[in-house]
């Protein structure tokens, strides 16, 4: 038990790092294909070690702290951003047996911990003492606050239907029917809001390259920059896993195809979500900051509230009520 307590997270860390390495490569490859290119292909066979080389380069680079920056905060910020990203992975159930912390309020834990990352981003942008970084950080804070609300509201429908905040319990509740069908509105709102939470295109305003150069991490380089990148992709991992768990039935097989092990089912659905994220990134332009706020407050939030109301209403209707 003791050994498992220590070994588990370490293994998990390497699994997550492995995922990040692969995800970045996969993202670059897929985007390359969509743009009539072949993507990275110089390092290792099929460009497999491209990300490894990139990370190594980042780790070997000079560690630069701008002279006018707030040094303590500047150094602390990437850590603040990364730690919660890794911490949320603890509650994700990959199969009914493969879960690190099966705590009762898993969903709440996930949402609460993931919000801390914003502080890291804000601190990093502020401490850099750079105007672009500051604007990026401010945008990030505003965006996170605005989209956390519809994100959580969209989940209320799921929680009502499953009757639990425990993520394993939510997956169990989807044995009959995945929540994506009855909670479709919730899914759409959740998906859009999660895109915004992840700072990914079309919601990548905090680091909007064409406007703010690199946004909050404009002054970062070397391994501190790597930490921000890492945090971003770990969140991609966590958020895709969460979407799978909440709406796509977790490890539950489709059409009763049980010959595939549950973990494979999970990975399939998970990969689909990751692919969709990349696909969206390859296609869409960036939304503007004021339109982002409008979308969050005027469209997603009312929709999420409506979804709660609808779920509550439909739950009382006999027949289909069992799905809600």
């Amino acid at each position: 038990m003791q050994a498992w307590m220590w070994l588990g997270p370490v293994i998990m860390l390497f699994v997550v790092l492995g995922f990040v390495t692969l995800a970045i490569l996969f993202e670059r490859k897929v985007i390359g294909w969509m743009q009539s290119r072949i993507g990275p292909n110089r390092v290792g066979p099929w460009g497999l070690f491209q990300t490894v080389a990139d990370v190594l380069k980042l780790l070997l680079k000079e560690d630069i702290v701008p002279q006018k920056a707030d040094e303590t905060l500047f150094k602390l910020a990437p850590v603040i951003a990364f730690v919660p990203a890794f911490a949320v992975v603890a509650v994700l159930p990959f199969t009914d047996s493969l879960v690190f912390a099966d705590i009762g309020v898993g969903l709440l834990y996930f949402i609460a911990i993931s919000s801390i990352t914003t502080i890291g981003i804000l601190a990093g942008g502020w401490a850099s003492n750079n105007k672009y970084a500051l604007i990026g950080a401010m945008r990030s804070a505003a965006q996170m606050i605005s989209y956390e609300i519809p994100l959580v509201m969209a989940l209320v429908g799921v929680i009502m239907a499953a009757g639990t905040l425990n993520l394993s319990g939510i997956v169990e509740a989807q044995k009959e029917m995945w929540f994506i069908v009855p909670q479709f509105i919730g899914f759409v709102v959740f998906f859009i809001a999660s895109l915004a939470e992840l700072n990914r295109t079309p919601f990548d305003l905090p680091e909007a390259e064409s406007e703010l150069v690199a946004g909050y991490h404009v002054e970062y380089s070397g391994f501190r920059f790597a930490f921000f990148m890492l945090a971003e992709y770990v969140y991609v991992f966590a958020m895709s896993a969460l979407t799978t768990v909440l709406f796509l039935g977790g490890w539950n097989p489709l059409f009763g195809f049980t010959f595939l092990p549950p973990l494979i089912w999970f990975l399939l659905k998970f990969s689909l979500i990751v692919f969709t994220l990349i696909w969206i990134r390859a296609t869409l332009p960036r939304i503007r900051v004021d339109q982002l706020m409008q979308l969050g407050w005027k469209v997603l939030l009312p929709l999420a509230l409506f979804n709660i109301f609808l779920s509550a209403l439909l739950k009382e209707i006999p027949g289909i009520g069992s799905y809600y």
Partner: protein
Amino acid sequence: MLGLLKGMGVTLKNMTKKKVTYKYPDEPVKMPERFRGIQHFDPEKCIVCNQCARVCPTDCITLTGRKHPDPNKRGKIIDTYDINFEICILCDLCTEVCPTEAIVMTRNFELAAYSRDELFKDMEWLHDNNTKIRGGSQ
């Protein structure tokens, strides 16, 4: 919303299409016959008429000549001929005015060097740059 999906369709369709990029350093890029690459210089043909140096818009050509060693022959022969590829813009004007085709374009274009000094090419180098000559068979 429909517009977004239509756009997504386009990117998805492109994913499976044939890729258009070259694997450049592995596969050499084939340049067309008329390509204006690094010049080849043939001292034998040069009559030291100075036209190339005069027409050059960036003054990157310097040349010197001397009297023909054989007293029976008229004219001059070339002594030194340098092109400074730091400023040469490969505009093709020197080859256009050359009456004897002593200077011609080739299809070689790789000029990258670690030092600027290496970009200063002399007669010998230009003479040895004799592959893929425009109009030639190689």
